[in-house]
């Protein structure tokens, strides 16, 4: 009896998910509400965190603001819903949010089995290692026998085990529940090495009494492409989010910034004209106005501005562009052209 009931509930849930997945018209919904519902994390430095004026800020947050500017003409028309890792996908499936921008890794399983689509990559992350400077270690390969601080129940734990077994290295894991505890453990010397996503290592390093005493090793042992997610089955909305990101990256390539975007509209370069909506109907093809990309760039900035403002050199995180630089500058950011 009990199993039967469970079966019925599961079936109902599956039907619900499918009916949602088949639903279209997110753009109309967003326009009707006059507000973009955006799922973010409950607090991740550099990506989504309430700043000192109690407003959400970060790279993931700015992606949502850019989409809002493109769709609604105002980067302020965003309703942020903080989500835990467990509820993030259901919140999107159930329609509670229109876009999930919450440092979510694009993986095969998530893309194929959850009824969701990843609209692109806004930050290429990867698992890295942080060690104390006085250890004098230059590479992960020298870390055999080290005590490693990790967070429980994350893919980080599995990646670590795989990597060390593969290279025949021994290690002792010291498991913590939250990132805050693991950095405390690292600082008090309970472990020699702290491992996490690299962007987080930089954020955690700022929590040390003397951040300069710890270094992040260059090796990256996993691929963590982070990007916004939308519901499957609504191609128009999927395209809008995908091309908003592409527009931000293309804007950096063309040298269009939030400051010069208005004057760039009179540029002779047809690529810039198309992007800023003075030539051809690029916005119309997405179901938006032609100044969609211009709005996003003017109000939020191009990719470089977003990156530098939230995680770049001037911020406490102090992350170099690295792989997140444009393809023409040694990175792997390569946005298809807008034409």
């Amino acid at each position, binding site marked *: 009896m009990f199993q039967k009931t469970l079966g019925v509930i599961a079936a*109902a*849930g599956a039907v*619900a*998910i499918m*009916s*949602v997945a088949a*639903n279209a018209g997110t753009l109309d919904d967003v326009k009707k509400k006059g507000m973009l519902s955006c799922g973010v994390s*409950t*607090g*991740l*430095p*550099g990506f989504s*965190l*309430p*700043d*000192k*004026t*109690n*407003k*959400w800020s970060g790279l993931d947050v700015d992606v949502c603001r850019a989409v809002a500017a493109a769709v609604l003409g105002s980067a302020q028309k965003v*309703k*942020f*819903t*903080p*989500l*835990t890792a*467990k*509820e993030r996908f*259901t*919140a999107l*499936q*159930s*329609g*509670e949010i229109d876009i999930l921008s919450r440092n979510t890794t694009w993986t095969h399983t998530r893309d194929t089995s959850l009824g969701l689509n990843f609209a692109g990559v806004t930050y290429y992350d990867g698992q890295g290692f942080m060690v104390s400077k006085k250890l004098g270690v230059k590479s992960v390969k020298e870390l055999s026998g080290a005590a490693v601080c990790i967070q429980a129940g994350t893919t980080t734990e599995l990646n670590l085990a795989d990597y060390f077994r593969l290279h025949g290295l021994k290690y002792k894991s010291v498991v913590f529940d939250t*990132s*805050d505890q693991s950095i*405390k453990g690292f600082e008090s010397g309970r472990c020699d090495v702290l491992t996490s996503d690299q962007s987080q290592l930089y*954020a955690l390093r*700022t*929590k*040390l*009494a003397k*951040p300069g005493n710890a270094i992040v090793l260059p090796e990256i042992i996993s691929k963590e492409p982070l990007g916004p997610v939308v519901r499957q089955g609504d191609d128009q909305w999927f395209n809008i989010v995908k091309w908003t990101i592409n527009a931000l990256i293309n804007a950096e390539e063309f040298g269009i910034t939030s400051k010069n975007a208005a004057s760039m509209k009179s540029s002779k370069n047809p690529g810039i004209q198309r992007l800023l909506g003075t030539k051809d109907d690029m916005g119309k093809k997405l179901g938006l106005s032609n100044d969609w990309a211009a709005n996003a760039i003017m109000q939020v900035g191009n990719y470089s501005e977003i990156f530098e403002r939230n995680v770049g050199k001037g*911020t*406490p*995180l102090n992350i170099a562009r690295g792989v997140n630089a444009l393809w023409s500058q040694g990175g792997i950011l390569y946005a298809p052209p807008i034409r």
Partner: protein
Amino acid sequence: MNDFQRSPDLPPPASTVGVVSWLRTNLFSSPANTILTLVGFYLVYSLLVPALDWAIFSASWVGENKDACDHKGACWVFIGQRLDFFIYGFYPKAEYWRINVIFVLLALLIIPQMMENAPHKVLLAWFFLIGFPIIAGTLLLGGVFGLPAVTTDKWGGLSLTLVIAFVGIVAALPIGILLALGRRSDMPVIRLLCVAFIELWRGVPLISVLFMASVMLPLFMPEGTNFDKLLRALIGITMFQSAYMAEVIRGGLQAIPRGQYEAAAALGLGYWKSMGLIILPQALKIVIPGIVNTFIALFKDTTLVLIIGLFDVLATVQAAIVDPDWPEVSTEGFIFTAFVFWVFCFTMSRYSIALERKLETGHKR
């Protein structure tokens, strides 16, 4: 006859009065006690002095940013700088006055309830239970009378904690009373329904109730009928707490001697009158400690809304301590949160003791 001149009494020996005597009888009465006393003093000294030094004397109190903290002691500057976030969450700054008005109104309504001879107490109590939630809800949400609307995703911090706790407490008590009466009812259908309700909600952890409300419920509802996440959480918490409340109150009902029920019937009182005038006033009085205990537990349980992404006071503190602008402030943040909770829970506990004393009519054993 010479007048007998009584010489004045000698003072008692110095060793039997005053501080010295108290010390001798209580702290140094035997070698073993002396050793224990000294060890105790040493422990208190070695713990208290660094704690006070950290929290008060070496602490940084004034400043604008992290540079004001030298980290020789606590960095209270952090709490001061982010205090508005901890209290108001994401609420727009220009509208803070609305929450302040509610805080003042809440205090004005609670103080007379704690005073012995305040006028119009009953009237005020009814206003507190019915009028106040309507006024507070209108002020918080806005959208009428020219107040800008503030959606619930902007609520947070201590004000959200209090909203959840207040709604839970005010709604759970009457529902709990009805459920407790229902469970002892002679009507089988009512009894069965109440038993089923209580056992279902009491048998499920609050975390899974919240998780169901936040994650599963929206999946079962047709697209577009998504109702507010806070409202879903409030309903879940109320259901959960009323089941607990029902069992506390049932304990009180069972403690009333059968004679009281029979006396009420002999007076010709119907069910509701006998319950309202005879049984419940006695039963509720007996279970005041249990009721307040449940309220205190509920108040602390509100922090669980963190897992469904609602920003209560603990969540705001946790988000603020990961801010790279403020290194090494997690201890201060958690101590602040603990202090806030302690103040509210201790107040509730003192109020309950005062209430018990006032209603004391010979049940003391």
